[in-house]
């Protein structure tokens, strides 16, 4: 019995669309698929085409159709055009080059490429150019090349794009198409012209040789473009009054590639670019599409400055366009050119800033990046107002980047310290929870250094805390400040604004509140406890503070517990040291790098040059030795380690922004610090005497010796030379001498380096540095700096590094107890955690 004729495609579609549920649809599909399968099994030629078409429809709905793959091949081999059409379509939809099945097509395609009917040849070229695998391309490249030379423009244009695909799949075959490209541009047919330009573009992009070869086409391309612009109305190619915009855009793109880096070519195209830029109608998208491509070309080639300004102005006009698409491409392009044509872009700053208020997320982001790139010393006040307003209202995704950008810009260009502090306050209060963790130490450093603003700062921060304790970065900075400057707070010393009346108890209430609040993270709690402790030397409510500290001695949080225990110990046994330890933090200097070619933007008051003497706090170091070495900040685990690779958004102007970012470092922390001025009788446990100097400069061949450490009788000097076989290795010899009365025993030198460095410490000459400069300890260190980054040396003295159990007093504190003599002779003196820190270029 013969099966009934399979239902027609349209009928199937209609039927399936009547299904009311997914299940109903699935059922219909399965039924039809079964019918199709049996029909295929019957090898029915008549209805194969119809069945495959139905299969393709069901495939589009998401159902599997792989059993139709071979049927497609049979259709392709058929002599009916309808079959071939559906067959090739099916091949393009169902087959992919990962399956071997597709190779079976090769022969069919080859035959069809030589078919007498151009529409069949067209099908073959289209399929090959759309999904041909590398093997197929290899086999059939010759046929394509032949068709590229035909006079039939219908086929020639398709062959050109097919050739593009072949080249993409098998780049080595590019050469064979070269002869056929000879007269491509002499064609009158726009289809051929367009596809030829695409082919030429592909070849030039892939091969510098091809690129040089095709440079000679520039005059011809210019001529074609000119004709397009100057010619009258051509109905066939007209789009809103512009003649063949597709071809114009492709020519402009090819010109860009040909003109890049080449003076002659760039000059040859100068006039036409100016012409297109000025004459193109801008009322519709199509004109703007051409202008956009023109601008991209002008910016990429070696164009005259007048032309460049013209291009930027076009972008500026784009920014004012009602069409948001146009604004979008303008911002994208401006972002690309802001570094090279900074001044020109500055002129459009206000328009760019307006785009911050745009509703489109992508436009906002680009506007933000551009805005940061345009901030400078002159416009900082106005720009910051806009950026802060933006920070207030923008999406959470933006806030972190925006906050970071604002901090950076503020640091570089702040017109006054007060303004700077206010700006920071504003960011912390409006976007405090989005601020990056590494901002906290930076801000603390900033605040410390703004000495005259301490009272104002602590007052503002205190007030902010009263309002909201949920934003951790804000809370951390505030706690730290209160710990440091709480005395200023209660004494009502503020000059900048009306001082508030607050009592010691109120302040302690707030800090204790942070300790117990659910909103506070462990890190924040650490900050609060330390702040409370510091206030013991600034406030008179000693008993209260003692009580708090002793309570937390049994805290579950190990960090808090450790701190509390040690602070407790300070009260009980080492009370005489407490004032010194908890004294005010001195100014911390940041290391900064100035690249050889850049100018440093200074804010009126601080100078970002390299300075001496850092002061480093460290009261305890319970962590293991290994951790010590890698702990770039040392001392306090609470302070997050600053990564030297800080996000480099937003784009910088002139590179300074990036470099400054790379060097932000904090060498201080929020813990109580030992005093810098210590009577000579005190044991030399203090963390001071730091010098920070550039240690390496890959430019310098010879590095002069330097004194890395000089304090309390201990002097450590470095001498440098380059290793003979490998100049990338620097050999540092340290000499340690001791001018005090007692030997320094158990002297151990340690060094920590970032990951890109390799370090080798050879054996020291001795562990004892004899007294009265009677001898020295020498040790050789070999350092390999393969990435040739500049680095800084920050020697630090550090506490002894043995583990302390929470019930014991840390060895650091222990050392304080002993009398100077005992200490000098017996103490383990771990000197110089030399920290070689890389600065990013």
């Amino acid at each position, binding site marked *: 019995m013969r099966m009934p004729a399979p239902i027609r495609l349209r009928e199937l*579609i*209609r039927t399936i669309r009547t299904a009311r549920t997914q299940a109903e649809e699935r059922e219909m599909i399965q039924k039809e698929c079964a019918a199709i399968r049996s029909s295929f099994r019957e090898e029915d030629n008549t209805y194969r085409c119809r069945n495959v*078409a139905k299969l*393709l*429809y069901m495939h*589009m*709905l*998401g159902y599997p159709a792989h059993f139709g793959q071979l049927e497609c091949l049979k259709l392709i081999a058929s*002599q*009916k*055009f*309808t079959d*071939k*059409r559906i067959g090739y*379509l099916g091949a393009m*939809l169902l087959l*992919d*080059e990962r399956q071997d099945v597709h190779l079976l097509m090769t022969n069919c395609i080859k035959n069809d490429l030589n078919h*007498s*009917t151009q*529409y*069949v040849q067209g099908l073959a070229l*289209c399929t090959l*150019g*759309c*999904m041909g695998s590398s093997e197929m391309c290899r086999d059939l490249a010759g046929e394509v090349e032949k068709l590229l030379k035909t006079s039939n423009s*219908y086929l020639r*244009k*398709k062959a050109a*794009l*097919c050739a593009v695909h072949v080249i993409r799949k098998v780049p080595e075959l590019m050469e064979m198409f070269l002869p056929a490209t000879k007269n491509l541009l002499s064609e009158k047919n*726009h*289809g051929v012209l*367009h*596809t030829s330009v*695409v082919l030429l573009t592909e070849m030039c992009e892939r091969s510098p040789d091809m690129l040089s070869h095709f440079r000679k086409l520039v005059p011809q391309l210019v001529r074609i473009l000119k004709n397009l612009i100057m010619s009258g109305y051509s109905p*066939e*190619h007209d*789009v809103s009054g512009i003649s*063949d*915009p*597709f*071809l114009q*855009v492709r020519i402009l*793109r090819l010109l860009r590639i040909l003109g890049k880096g080449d003076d002659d070519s760039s000059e040859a195209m100068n006039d036409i670019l100016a012409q297109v830029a000025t004459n193109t109608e801008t009322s519709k998208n*199509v004109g*703007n*599409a*051409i202008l*956009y*491509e023109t601008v*991209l070309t002008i910016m990429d080639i070696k164009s005259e400055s007048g032309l460049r300004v013209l291009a930027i102005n076009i972008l500026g006009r784009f920014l004012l366009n009602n069409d*948001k*698409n*146009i604004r*979008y491409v303008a911002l994208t392009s401006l972002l690309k050119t802001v570094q090279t044509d900074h001044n020109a872009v500055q002129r459009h700053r206000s328009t760019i800033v307006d785009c911050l208020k745009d*509703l*489109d997320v*992508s*436009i906002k982001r680009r506007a933000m990046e551009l805005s940061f790139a345009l901030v400078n010393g002159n416009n900082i006040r106005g720009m910051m107002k806009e950026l802060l307003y933006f920070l207030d209202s923008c999406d959470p995704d933006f806030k972190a980047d925006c906050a970071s950008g604002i901090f950076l810009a503020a640091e570089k260009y702040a017109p006054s310290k007060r303004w700077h502090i206010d700006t920071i306050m504003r960011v912390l209060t409006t976007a405090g929870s989005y601020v990056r963790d590494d901002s906290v130490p930076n801000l603390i450093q900033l605040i410390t250094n703004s000495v005259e603003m301490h009272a104002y700062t602590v007052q503002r921060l205190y007030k902010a805390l009263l309002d909201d304790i949920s934003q951790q970065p804000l809370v951390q900075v505030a706690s730290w400040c209160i710990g440091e400057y709480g005395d200023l707070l209660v004494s009502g010393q503020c000059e900048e604004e009306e001082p508030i009346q607050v009592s010691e108890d109120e302040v302690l209430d707030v800090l204790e509140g942070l300790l117990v609040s659910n909103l506070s993270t462990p890190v924040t709690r650490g900050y609060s406890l330390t702040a409370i402790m510091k206030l013991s030397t600034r406030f008179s409510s000693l008993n209260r503070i003692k009580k708090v500290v002793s309570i937390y001695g049994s805290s579950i949080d190990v960090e808090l517990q450790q701190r509390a225990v040690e602070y407790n110990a300070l009260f009980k046994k080492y009370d005489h040291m407490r004032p010194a330890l908890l004294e005010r933090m001195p100014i911390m200097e940041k290391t900064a790098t100035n690249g050889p070619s850049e100018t440093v933007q200074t804010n009126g008051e601080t100078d970002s040059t390299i300075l001496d003497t850092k002061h480093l706090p460290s009261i305890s170091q319970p962590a293991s030795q290994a951790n010590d070495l890698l702990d770039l900040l040392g001392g306090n685990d609470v302070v997050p380690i600053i990564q030297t690779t800080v996000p480099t958004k937003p784009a910088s102007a002139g590179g300074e922004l990036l470099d400054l970012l790379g060097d932000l470092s904090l060498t201080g922390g929020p813990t109580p610090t030992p005093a810098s001025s210590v009577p000579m009788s005190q044991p030399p446990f203090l963390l001071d005497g730091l010098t920070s100097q550039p240690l390496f400069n890959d430019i310098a061949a010879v590095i002069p010796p330097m004194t890395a450490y000089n304090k309390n009788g201990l002097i450590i000097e470095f001498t440098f030379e380059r290793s003979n076989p490998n100049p990338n290795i620097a050999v540092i010899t340290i000499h340690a001498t001791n001018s005090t009365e007692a030997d320094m025993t158990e002297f151990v030198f340690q060094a920590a380096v970032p990951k890109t460095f390799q370090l080798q410490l050879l054996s020291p000459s001795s562990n004892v540095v004899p007294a009265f400069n009677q001898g020295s300890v020498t040790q050789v260190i070999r350092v390999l700096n393969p990435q040739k980054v500049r680095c800084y040396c920050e020697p630090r003295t550090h506490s002894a590094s043995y583990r302390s159990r929470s019930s014991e007093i840390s060895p650091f504190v222990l050392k304080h107890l002993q009398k100077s003599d005992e200490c000098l002779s017996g103490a383990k003196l771990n000197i110089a955690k030399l920290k070689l820190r890389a600065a990013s270029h």
Partner: protein
Amino acid sequence: MQFMLLFSRQGKLRLQKWYVPLSDKEKKKITRELVQTVLARKPKMCSFLEWRDLKIVYKRYASLYFCCAIEDQDNELITLEIIHRYVELLDKYFGSVCELDIIFNFEKAYFILDEFLLGGEAQETSKKNVLKAIEQADLLQEVRALATA
């Protein structure tokens, strides 16, 4: 151009043209994600978005979204013109095209697309020439059997 997708406001796929080799699974995943992303866009937003490492250009015509994925160096604005040209071709061919035309005659929509673009690039910039070729090819379907090569 890496691919072009046509889908309805309910997210139903009406046409998919891929110019890069991907497995069926990958295509489905990309389609699903992209459709979701584009449908979530508000009318006030611009027609471009960044998605993975591609630029997506989309435009809605009545109930159909036309969505193209282009590469970094491609011109977004001219891609909008490409999309528009395709719609014009469909419109001329079907006579005031609507989504139903494309649903019931999807294979023709593909044929027209394949006469306009090849390998992701425009092969013919004259509307007239594309339509003429389609017309001729349609006539050829009536022929019983082609003359052999």
